[in-house]
């Protein structure tokens, strides 16, 4: 309105002024803000060009991948000029308050999903998405509120809002709080301020002298109603001297606290129930917030839709309502969909005839068969018996055939009397309960009696722990075989008799009730029925309901696929692994689960192995792997290996599309077969592989150079693709592969070789020298075989390394001075040692050890270590030393300073009168599985000062024997 008046002021004098104003308004839109529409359009023009739909591949991802998810860069319609400029915008009537509120469908922020597919784990789903606020929306005077809303299969909820507050906005909020605090401080809390106490006091002192005179008196005084000489009471005086206006003003202030709060603090600072509240100071760039929300999952949750609403606040009032036009959709996958739903049955055996019994301890008085129903023990026992009989009779599925009451007595007393007594007791008890049974049954109610229950007594005594073993044995030894009464007297003379009478005998006076029942609806004696195992089915149900703990508790005992799935979902990976290992014939799903477990336990190679097995069995598992975050990164890393399988599949599929009827046939064949190799159905055979190293023994073998600790076997098809592989920690194994022409490669004592999908991959594998150790030398070999049925073959293997050894060192110096000087061998080692060798094929080593003798690290295979062996002239040093090295194929030798591949050398380092000298023996071309032995080194002159220096012929003499390791050869060479 102000601006309009300004304009009309300019219009005051005619058209020229009008033109001036119009031009001015066009030229100075920002500063003058003349003409709201003009400034509006100008602003809109600036921003419209910036609305670019974003593609999410602009984002860098460390894991997971982003799907296209409707990222739209939004425009903003912000009034840069600040207050005072009327801004013309669309308005809608807000339904809740009825106000007209400015609104613009300005998609003002970029929301990007990082993962379109989310996996449910442990009953919860983690949603992550980015909210990006472009710099245009960020203003120091504004507060932005973003409210994500989530719709999970119809269940709508709002997530916690984000607040992005401009600095000036926050300062204004804080100022509001300060002003409110100042207002609160102005409320007087001390009521003595309201009274003019000085005047009141003087008045009271002047006119109520009695009170003050009695101030020191302890008796009760000070009636506030007391009047002074003119009839003015103290209360009136107090009233007069109170500043009533101040009191009133204070009360008003107290009452208006709420309104004042609302007036000063227009927009309170919220600190709870929100996700983020940032204050941006001078931010020029966009703000990106990664919103992470954990959502409780429920069965049937497949899709979660997230939409974003926003609001812009300025000066405490809502300025704009924003709504992001697109929403993000997350698809939820769950392990529970892998559950196996087949019903499980358990066998239940039902018998036709049932037997049941119960005992009662009924107190009879001495020698009597009367039941005293007033005794407390008897009452409870009899009622229990009655209830028991009632229970049995009332069950509809059973029919009572007969019942027997057996009464027994304790051993004391005459046997004959006891037997009659027991019979009488049984009868009296039977009479007592007879009324419980229908009349038809009465003939079948029997009695029996055990006059003196010696067996039970012996049993009780034997199991009684309070009796000492001595007494127990004595009691047990009393045999009631012949005459019970004399046995009784014998017993009565024992020291433990009192205990027997007090404690054991009462338990012998029992009455036993035995029931025989049968099922009326059964004809056969026993019936085996298969019932649905409800515990198992409820466990499966629990998996479906994502209640994993309950599922584990129900299914653990079954140790099958579903049980493994439950354990895996609940996070018990080791248990799941155990269970899966116990499953012999794993289905595709079981292999897939095993892959998941391995991936979770961070054993990536094994995971890939199981996964590939699973895909071989069921190619659709490949698509499942995309959904599980444990496996998808592994898949992407090993994409080339995977393509081999998928390529086969895709190639086959392509063929089906190209060729006609044959294609249809192949397609049918493919979809029927569980395996993807659709060319022909391959017969499975079992191959037993052994490596006959034990026959390759030499006398000079040390340690256990032919030990086989582990063998790994690969079976390749004619085209070089892998058919099967297996590994065992022994010297033979059985492997399941398919029939046909196969090449079997065995690798012994090597570390696990993984990810071999064809023979070329294996040809590229190398074995390091360090893989060998004394007693575990790496060997390899291969054999071609045609398999038609299960067979067993031996694969000949050769050691990959060669052995270099020196057997004797003799000093035979020509010069006298050396003969008497001290000669100490400091060390013997190999230099220029090849570091690695291929398992199959001969190729050059890729790295070297101890080249030119310069970097002798501690490698026990190629050096002896520190030695200090003195050699006296004439007495040879006889200890042989053995070294292992990888084959060195280089023909040309070189002694150049600069490193180049050269022959391996055996160096003896010695100290001759304190001076270090080297005796170098250069080996010929070293081949694998050969022995290179220096039988004797005869030293005649001081050696060279550098291990890489060629030794002159006069320094020493030696010869090198070369022989094949395999052949049994013993012999010595004379130099």
């Amino acid at each position, binding site marked *: 309105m102000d601006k309009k008046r300004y304009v009309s002021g300019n219009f005051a004098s005619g058209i020229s002024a009008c033109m001036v104003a119009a031009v001015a308004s066009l030229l100075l839109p920002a500063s003058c803000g003349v003409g709201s529409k003009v400034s509006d359009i100008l602003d809109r023009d600036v921003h419209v060009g910036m609305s670019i739909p974003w593609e999410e591949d602009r984002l860098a991802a460390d894991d997971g991948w982003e799907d296209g998810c409707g990222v739209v860069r939004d425009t903003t319609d912000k009034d840069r000029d600040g207050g005072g400029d009327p801004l013309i915008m669309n308005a809608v009537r807000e339904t809740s308050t009825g106000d007209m509120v400015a609104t613009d469908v300005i998609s003002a922020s970029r929301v990007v999903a990082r993962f379109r597919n989310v996996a449910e784990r442990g009953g919860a789903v983690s949603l992550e998405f980015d909210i990006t606020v472009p710099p245009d929306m960020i203003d120091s005077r504004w507060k932005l509120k973003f409210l994500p809303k989530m719709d999970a299969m119809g269940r709508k909820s709002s997530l916690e809002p984000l607040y992005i507050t401009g600095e000036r906005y926050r300062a204004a909020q804080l100022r509001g709080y300060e002003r409110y605090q100042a207002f609160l401080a102005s409320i007087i809390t001390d009521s003595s301020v309201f009274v003019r106490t000085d*005047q009141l006091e*003087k*008045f009271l*002192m*002047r*006119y109520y*002298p009695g009170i003050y005179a009695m101030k020191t008196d302890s008796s009760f005084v000070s009636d506030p109603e007391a009047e002074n*000489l*003119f*009839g*003015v009471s103290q209360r009136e005086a107090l009233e*007069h001297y109170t500043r009533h206006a101040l009191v009133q003003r204070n009360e008003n202030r107290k009452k208006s606290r709420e309104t004042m709060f609302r007036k000063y603090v227009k927009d309170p600072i919220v600190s709870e129930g929100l996700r983020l509240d940032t204050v941006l100071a001078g931010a020029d760039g966009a703000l990106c917030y990664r919103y992470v929300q954990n959502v409780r999952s429920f069965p049937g949750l497949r899709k979660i839709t997230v939409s974003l609403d926003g609001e812009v606040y300025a000066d405490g009032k809502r300025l704009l309502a924003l709504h992001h036009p697109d929403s993000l959709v997350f698809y939820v996958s769950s392990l529970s969909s892998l559950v196996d739903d087949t019903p499980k049955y358990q066998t239940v055996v039902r018998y036709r005839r049932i037997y049941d019994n119960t005992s009662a301890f009924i107190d009879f008085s001495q020698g009597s068969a009367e039941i005293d129903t007033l005794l407390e023990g008897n009452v409870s026992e009899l009622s229990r018996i009655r209830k028991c009989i009632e229970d049995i009779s009332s069950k509809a599925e059973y029919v009572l055939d007969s019942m027997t009451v057996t009464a027994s007595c304790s051993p004391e007393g005459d046997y004959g009397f006891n037997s009659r007594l027991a019979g009488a007791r049984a009868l009296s008890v039977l009479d007592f309960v007879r009324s419980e049974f229908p009349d038809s049954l009465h003939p079948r109610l029997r009695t029996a009696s055990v006059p003196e229950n010696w067996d039970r007594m012996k049993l009780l005594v034997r199991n009684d722990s309070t009796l000492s073993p001595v007494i127990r044995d004595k009691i047990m030894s009393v045999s009631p075989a012949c005459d019970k009464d004399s046995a009784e007297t014998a017993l009565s003379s024992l020291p433990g008799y009192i205990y027997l009478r007090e404690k054991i005998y009462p338990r012998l006076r029992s009455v036993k009730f035995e029931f025989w029942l049968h099922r009326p609806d059964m004809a056969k004696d026993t019936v085996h029925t298969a019932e649905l195992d409800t515990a198992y089915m409820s466990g499966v149900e629990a998996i479906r309901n994502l209640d994993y703990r309950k599922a584990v508790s129900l299914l653990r005992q079954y140790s099958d696929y579903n049980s493994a799935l439950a354990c895996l979902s609940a996070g018990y990976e080791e248990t799941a692994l155990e269970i899966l290992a116990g499953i012999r014939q794993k289905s595709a799903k079981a292999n897939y689960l095993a892959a998941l477990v391995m991936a979770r336990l961070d054993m990536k190679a094994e995971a890939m192995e199981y996964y590939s097995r699973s895909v071989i069995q069921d190619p659709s598992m490949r698509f499942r792997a995309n959904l599980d975050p444990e496996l998808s990164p592994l898949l992407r890393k090993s994409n080339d290996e995977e393509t081999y399988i998928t390529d086969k599949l895709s190639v086959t599929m392509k063929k089906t599309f190209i060729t006609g009827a044959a294609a249809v046939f192949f397609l049918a064949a493919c979809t029927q077969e569980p395996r993807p190799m659709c060319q022909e159905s391959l017969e499975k055979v079992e191959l037993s592989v052994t490596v006959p190293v034990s026959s390759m023994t030499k006398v000079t073998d040390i340690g256990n150079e032919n030990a086989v600790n582990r063998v790994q076997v690969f079976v390749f098809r004619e085209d070089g693709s892998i058919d099967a592989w297996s590994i065992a920690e022994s010297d033979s194994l059985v492997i399941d592969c398919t029939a046909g022409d196969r090449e079997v490669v065995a690798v012994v004592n090597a570390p696990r070789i993984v990810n071999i999908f064809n023979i070329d991959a294996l040809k590229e594998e190398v074995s390091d020298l360090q893989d060998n150790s004394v007693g575990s030398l790496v060997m390899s070999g291969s054999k071609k075989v045609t398999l038609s049925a299960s067979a067993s073959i031996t694969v000949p293997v050769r050691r990959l390394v060669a052995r270099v050894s020196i057997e004797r060192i003799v000093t035979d110096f020509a010069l006298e001075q050396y003969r008497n000087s001290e000669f100490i061998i400091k060390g013997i080692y190999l230099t220029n040692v090849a570091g690695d060798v291929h398992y199959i094929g001969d190729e050059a080593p890729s790295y070297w050890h101890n080249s030119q003798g310069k970097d002798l690290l501690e490698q026990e295979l190629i050096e002896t270590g520190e030695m200090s062996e003195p050699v006296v002239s004439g007495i040879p040093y006889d200890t042989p030393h053995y070294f292992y090295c990888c084959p060195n194929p280089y023909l040309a030798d070189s002694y150049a300073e600069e490193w180049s591949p050269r022959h391996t050398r055996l160096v003896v380092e010695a100290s001759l009168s304190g001076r270090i000298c080297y005796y170098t023996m250069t080996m010929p071309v070293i081949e694998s599985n050969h022995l290179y032995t220096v039988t004797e080194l005869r030293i005649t002159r001081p050696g060279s000062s550098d291990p890489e220096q060629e030794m002159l012929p006069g320094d020493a003499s030696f010869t090198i024997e070369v022989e094949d390791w395999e052949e049994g050869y013993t012999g010595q060479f004379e130099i």
Partner: protein
Amino acid sequence: MRILKYCLVLACMAVMSATGAEARRFAVSTNLAGYANLGTLNAELAYSFARRWTVNAGVKYNPWTFRASGRQFQNRQQSYSAGARFWPWHVYSGWWIAGKLQYQEYNTGGIISRRTEEGDRAGAGLTAGYTYMLHPNLNIEFGIGLWAGVKWYVEYACPACGLTLSSGRKGFILPNDLLISISYVF
């Protein structure tokens, strides 16, 4: 004048002979600002007979003539007044308004100009003010008042001469009190 003196003495005697005088009924006060009025001695006696009323009688006496190097000025007076005060809240504290009758014999001159006026005034006055309690026995009073009445006067040309300028009887209205007085409450 003599009658008034007699009344005053009677009043004092009445006061002094009052037996069993209850506390806080009597007050004597003197106006400090009055001393600034060329040293006018003044005193007033008040008696409260009800919660909101006092009667008072006062006297002012200024015998001083100031002669300094040929110049002479004076504001000699003796005035006797009797009046009553109304205290809306309670006597001897807070706001009050008073009316009184006053007789004054005066001789004023040489202060602003040499003209000197001498005569008698009689009239009624109205004063209002506020009393602040300093002590159970001590008050400080602030007040302002004016009075109006009739004066019989002779006006001379100079303070110590006999040249008459005018004389007669006239009405007058003058400010009477400017009180900053201390009163002692018995």
